[in-house]
C-alpha cells in the first residue's frame, strides 16, 4: 500500500499495518513523536489499534530546537 508521510509518498509491502507497525518499519521506535492520521491526531495509546489503509496521509512530528 501507498502512504504519504510528511508529504512524501512511500510504498509498503504489507497491506495490514497499524501505526505502531509503521513506527517500527520506519525505525522510529522509542522516539518521542506525535502523529496526525488523515488530519486527526492519534493518541499514543491508539497506535496499536489504528490500521493504515492505502492512500492514508500521515504527519509525524517531534520537538526540535527553536525560539
Amino acid at each position, binding site marked *: 500500500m501507498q502512504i504519504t508521510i510528511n508529504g512524501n509518498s512511500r510504498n509498503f509491502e504489507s497491506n495490514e499495518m497499524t501505526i505502531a507497525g509503521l513506527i517500527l518499519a520506519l*525505525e522510529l521506535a522509542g522516539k518521542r*513523536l506525535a502523529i496526525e492520521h488523515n488530519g486527526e*491526531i492519534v493518541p499514543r495509546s491508539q497506535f496499536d489499534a489504528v490500521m493504515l489503509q492505502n492512500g492514508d496521509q500521515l504527519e509525524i512530528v517531534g520537538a526540535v530546537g527553536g525560539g
Partner: protein
Amino acid sequence: MDNLIIAGKPYHSRLLVGTGKYKDFVQTRAAIDASGAQIVTVAIRRTNIGQTAGEPSLLEYLPPEEFTYLPNTAGCYSADDAVRTLRLARELLNGHSLVKLEVLGDPRTLYPNVTETIAAAKVLVKEGFDVMVYTSDDPIIAKQLEDIGCSAVMPLASLIGSGMGILNPWNLQIIIENAKIPVLVDAGVGTASDAAIAMELGCQGILMNTAIASANNPILMASAMKKAVEAGREAYLAGRMAKKLYGAAPSSPITGLID
C-alpha cells in the same frame, strides 16, 4: 520569594530562552544552564524519516523532567496552522498545556499577524491551553488577548532576530500598566542592557533566543542575560530615584568643609 507566576505555576527564573540557532546540543545545554532558565521554547517539526536512527535529540540534552517545555508555533502564518501545531505539541508532550502562540505576518519581518493570533488564541483557550502569546506592542491588542483568557502577553521589543532592543518603551509601559496577566518581552533584545531596561519598565520576564545563540560566546552572554534580568527586576522593585535636571543635593555632607 519573587516568583514569576504563569498559569498558576511559580518560576524563580524570569528569563525564558529558545533552543534554536546553537552550534550543537552541547552548546545549547551549556547556554541554557548559564541562563538559569526554567522554561525553554521548542519548535514542532516533521520528523526526519530514515535519518533518525541513533541521531541525538534535543530531549536527551534538555530532559522534559528538568525543564518546562514551551512548544511554540514559530513558522505558522495562519491561525489554523498554529492551532494544529499546538494540538500536536500537546499530544507529543503528554497533555502539556503551556504553549507559546506566535502567528507571523510575513517571512521578511516576522512581524506578528494579530488578527490570526487573536483567532488562534480564542480556539486554544477554549481547548484548555495555557497560552503565552507573542504579539505586537499594541496596547489594545494586548488587552484583547488578555480578555480572551491568555496566560501571558508577550509583546515584541523589536523584530524577531533583529537585536534592535526596545524601540517603544512607552507602549510597553502602557501594556504593563493595563495588564493583569504577566507581560514578557519576546523578541528584539540584543544585549544585556536591553533586558535590564525591559525589566526596569516592569516586565515580568523576557523570552529570547538569538541574543544568546548568536553572540560570539553564547554561554557568557547567557550568563550576562541572567544577571541583567535579575538586576532589572531588582531595580524595578526597588523603585528608581526621580530624574532631575539639576540634582542640587550632593551625596556628601555640605557642612564641615575645610576652609
